[in-house]
């Protein structure tokens, strides 16, 4: 295996991990506030189709991404209204959101199947991009890859150093006490849900505008669910989401690469690896009561009843 090839494999790994990273960041923030939204897949698909349609008509990838994020936010608002205002069960509502999003995206995308877009040019970072090996592997990606890393840093900083981040965590840990000290649990959770929607929309648009610039029904192919696993795998820590996204990305392509070298492992068994790893991490974390309190939002998935 020559060095160039390894650089290219790293490149491919990062690119495969990027949509996972984006959607998982959104879900992370959402879960930190105590909300479990299983509608990722539906929101991603809406982002993918709306982003594609917008970019197709405006000839602008930027417009595509903005519209995709708006579509994701709109979807998340439906979820928010039903779970927050109407206190419906989060799991059931999330699943319904996925069914709804899959149907709606297929419906509005009917006329756009078979249309193509020009992909996004890679941005080779001046200087860094020309370093051998590192340049190819890390510094010649498309803009969204860089952006997703910046988003990571932002979310990390947000939770670590800002008051707002602290509030989100407080709401996720104990909505009752958060309310007691005068925080609006509902508004905080709404913001978190909307952030999750925007990220899911963006991840969907990454697929339909950059990764494979086309629209096709159900093109996310289960990535929303992998992202869900990823957040748990990362034990709700931003830096681990970043690492985990690339690990999961690698896991999904490693068998393709190995096949090229005539090494054959059952792709199905290989595909279980990320999930098995996630369960192991989950067990390791939760077997220690003190630790789980530090990472997993205590109120995750539980409805919050306002008492006025």
């Amino acid at each position: 295996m020559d060095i160039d090839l390894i650089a290219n494999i790293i490149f491919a790994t990062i690119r495969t991990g990027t949509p996972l990273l984006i959607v998982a960041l959104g879900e992370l923030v959402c879960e930190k506030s105590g909300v479990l939204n299983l509608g990722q897949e539906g929101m991603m698909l809406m982002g993918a189709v709306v982003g594609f349609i917008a970019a197709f008509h405006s000839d602008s990838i930027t417009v595509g991404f903005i519209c995709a994020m708006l579509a994701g936010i709109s979807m998340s608002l439906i979820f928010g209204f039903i779970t927050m205002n109407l206190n419906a069960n989060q799991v059931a509502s999330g699943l319904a959101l996925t069914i709804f999003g899959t149907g709606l995206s297929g419906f509005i995308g009917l006329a756009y199947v078979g249309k193509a877009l020009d992909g996004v040019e890679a941005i080779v970072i001046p200087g860094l991009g020309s370093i051998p090996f590192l340049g190819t592997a890390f510094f010649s990606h498309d803009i969204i890859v860089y952006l997703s890393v910046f988003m990571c840093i932002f979310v990390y900083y947000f939770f670590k150093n800002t008051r707002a981040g602290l509030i989100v965590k407080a709401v996720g840990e104990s909505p009752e006490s958060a309310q007691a000290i005068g925080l609006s649990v509902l508004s905080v959770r709404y913001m978190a849900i909307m952030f999750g929607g925007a990220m899911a929309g963006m991840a969907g648009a990454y697929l339909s505008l950059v990764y494979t610039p086309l629209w096709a029904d159900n093109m996310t192919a289960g990535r929303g669910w992998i992202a869900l696993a990823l957040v748990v795998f990362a034990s709700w820590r931003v830096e681990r989401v970043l690492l985990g996204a690339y690990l999961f990305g690698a896991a999904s392509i490693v068998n393709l690469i190995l096949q090229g070298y005539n090494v054959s492992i059952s792709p199905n068994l290989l595909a279980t690896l990320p999930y098995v790893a996630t369960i192991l991490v989950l067990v390791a974390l939760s077997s220690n009561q003190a630790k789980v309190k530090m990472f997993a939002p205590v109120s995750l998935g539980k409805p919050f009843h306002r008492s006025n």
Partner: protein
Amino acid sequence: MLKTRVIKAAIAALASATVLLSAQSFAEATKVAFVYVGPTGDAGWTYAHDKGRQYVEEQFGDKVETTYVESVAEGADSERVIRQLAKSGHDLIFTTSFGYMNPTLKVAKAFPKVAFEHASGYKQSKNVGTYFDRAYEGRYLTGVVAGKMTKSNVLGYVGSFPIPEVIRGINAFTRGAQSVNPDIKVKVVWVSSWYDPGKEREAAETMILQGADVITQHTDSPGPINAAEAKGAYAIGYNSDMAEYGKTAHLTATVHNWGPLYASKVKAVMDGTWKAEDVWGGFADDALILAPFNDAVPQDVRDYVNAQKAAIVDGSLHPFAGPVTAQDGTVKVAEGEVMSDGDMLGFSWYVDGVDGALPK
């Protein structure tokens, strides 16, 4: 798309379905149904079948009524859908995925007057015919194109599942490429999915990194074409003309042309001459076509491919004419013989020139 197929069924149609069925010869339009495994918007397999359905509508106008049901799961649901179509008075039902084989046979038993056509299967009955196209002829010709255009002598093939249909395509492609360029190697990467644009793209890129400079595929999305376009390699499409997705990369494609076959079946049902048979149409029957060549393909290559195609049509060239040597060196078809249809339907080995072992 909605408007092109206004299928007005009165609510009472269900009740009078049986009447319609027996009165079809002198009354209503012939009702033809299609069962699809994917969405008509998959840009691949189902898309090609739906083109065939549209062709039937164009050909017969108001003498025919077509219905389709898309994304029918291959489990317990398919039998109900097929039965519902038979019950609601359809005269001819095309089931377009391998997984519908047993459900189609079960329903056909209960509806002896309805004609069924199942794509890609191997079981027939009194009123179940099977059909497929000799896509391997197209594979052979696109292999010739790839063999002429490659500089690295490594070709990449994105596979779905190692079933005979796919292996046949790989072998034909390899033999086509070898016929003009004996040094050729074909790499195969299996993505274990018929449809996953992202994974297909990664598989294609992996092979490009490993030296392949012409990519083809037996999967349904244009992902591999995207990869070739981005990486400066060539690509050869499958199912439908995928030129849209790779303006410089897409050389040509093996395109299913179900329209004429469907039209002839519909005609046979209208005339009352329909019989259950196993139809396997090739270039000679217009069952498949080659997509228009990219500008990058030089004139002499085009001429050569067209001559080869003419030879396939007139029967003087067969992609699996002996000697056919398997990967391990055994001669499977002796010189002067031609592989039988039965043997081709059961392909479970690679021909010489394919790199790597066939997954068990």
